[in-house]
């Protein structure tokens, strides 16, 4: 990796960790995660069953939000401040710059997630190993997928305020309405849509992928079957491929669009 890219990664990390909104939502996530684990610990033997799903819900709401806030202005923000041209006047390629920004902001996101789970870990006691450790990597992957989406939007929009509006819409659609939509499809079709199709549709959304993966961890296959869900989480290879597509795809697409732009 070249000097400029390395410097940009550090710069992004340093700048993003100073962002008020990122700090506020990260601290809120940490406080709520701590509260959930503290409450769950009092449940004794049922602690894992209570704390795990609650933390999954919390992470699936907050982490995408932090990620989108972190990334929505990555390119459009520079462009509005007239510093995009200045950055690209350095010895760095457009694609390389997009990746450096992604990596720098990924480090900031990882810090936010670690702050949340770290503070929860203080209160988790013995539950920590069973709940927090299995959550950590998928939560980071979920965050990276949304970070990548936010970065793509920051390339597509010409104004930061438009990009900010777009990420709010994306967050609502993928985190809230997507599942409701699927439920609606099931109700309207009166069960005509097969479990396989539904499973594919769930996996087509990173938030759905994350929830499904974590449900199996905390409830287990039998638990899912008791809920009437026969769908299985894909194999590790397919999971890795799906997360890779969600994380790498939008960044690559964003970089490609920037590469093809005639005017910066």
């Amino acid at each position, binding site marked *: 990796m070249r*000097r400029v890219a390395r410097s940009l990664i550090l710069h992004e990390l340093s*700048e993003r960790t100073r962002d008020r909104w990122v700090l506020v939502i990260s601290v809120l996530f940490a406080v709520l995660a701590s509260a959930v684990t503290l409450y769950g610990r009092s449940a004794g033997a049922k602690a894992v069953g209570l704390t795990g799903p609650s933390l999954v819900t919390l992470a699936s709401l907050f982490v995408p939000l932090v990620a989108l806030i972190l990334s929505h202005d990555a390119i459009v923000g520079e462009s509005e401040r007239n510093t995009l*041209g*200045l950055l*690209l*006047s*350095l*010895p760095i390629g457009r694609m390389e710059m997009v990746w450096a920004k992604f990596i720098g902001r990924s480090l900031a996101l990882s810090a936010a997630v670690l702050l949340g789970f770290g503070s929860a870990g203080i209160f988790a006691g013995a539950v920590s190993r069973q709940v927090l450790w299995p959550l950590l990597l998928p939560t980071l992957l979920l965050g990276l997928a949304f970070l990548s989406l936010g970065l793509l939007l920051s390339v597509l929009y010409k104004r930061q305020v438009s990009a900010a509006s777009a990420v709010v819409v994306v967050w609502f659609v993928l985190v809230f309405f997507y599942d409701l939509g699927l439920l609606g499809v099931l109700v309207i079709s009166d069960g005509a849509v097969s479990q396989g199709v539904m499973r594919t549709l769930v996996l087509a959304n990173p938030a759905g992928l994350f929830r499904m993966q974590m449900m199996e961890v905390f409830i287990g296959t039998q638990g899912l079957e008791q809920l009437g869900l026969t769908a299985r989480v894909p194999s590790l290879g397919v999971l890795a491929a799906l997360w890779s597509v969600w994380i790498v795809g939008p960044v690559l697409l964003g970089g490609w669009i920037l590469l093809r732009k005639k005017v*910066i």
Partner: protein
Amino acid sequence: MKSLSLRDISVRFGEVQALDRVEISLEAGQICMLVGPNGAGKSTLLKVLLGLVRPEQGELHIDQQMAVQDYAFREKIGYLPENVAFSENLTGWQVLSFFARARGVRKERIEEVLRFVSLEHAARRAVRGYSRGMRQRLGLAVAILTEPMLLILDEPTGGLDQEGLSVLWEVLRVWREAGRMVLLSTHDIALLERRVDQMCVFKRGRICARGTPLELREMAALPIQIYLTFDDEKVITRLRTLEVLSSWITEVEEKKEQGVFQVRLVIPSHALLDYVQQQSLFSSDIRGFRMEEPTLDEVYERLLEMF
């Protein structure tokens, strides 16, 4: 890098021909100023040079050799964008530190540059507390950090107060004396007249006039105004009998409080020598003399009308 030229540059944005076969060249120690109305193509040309706009056609030549805007080229340039606004969360020092790390510049140079742009006292303050002029000086500091062979300044005078302008004049002086090059675009023509070697006037994507400010003045051939003051009105009557001079008299004003008469002459730029010869006939009667040359702004307006 001793010389640089952009040849035959054409850029089209949809239906708009932003640049049409534009050529510019710069030698070491030269400062070139691009002027023209908004949208005439000045900033686009700077961006072509930076590799931020891809032209339909054209070539970059460095030291008479064809070149590309590769990383080695970018190491040699410093750029100040128009209305630059760095991240509000960072301090001036942090902004410069990033560019210094990215450019491989030692930390001591940051201190030097901060002193040069008179921002050493504000270096530890967040950029959000900076005035527009301070932000512009910070941008200038970023541009000169590596002492680049080529400085590209897009509207460098924007938002600068007198202190900021002094910093900019010093940058231009140092760059010229060190045998480096500066290419800048501006609307503040008059401010920069005596500080540039070459001027290119842009109009609708073409360079309609180029040369030193003096050459452009000659090209525009705008008249010169001379104000003469006399004690006696009879001198004016005598002036009117001088065949050549009489045609230049446009206004006679009696200044009652001072008890003098003022004559305004508008002389074609090429006829200044004729005037001097005529003046010898009545110079002993002149009580006051004032000459007004056209400003470079007026020259620029005239050139835009001409081409």
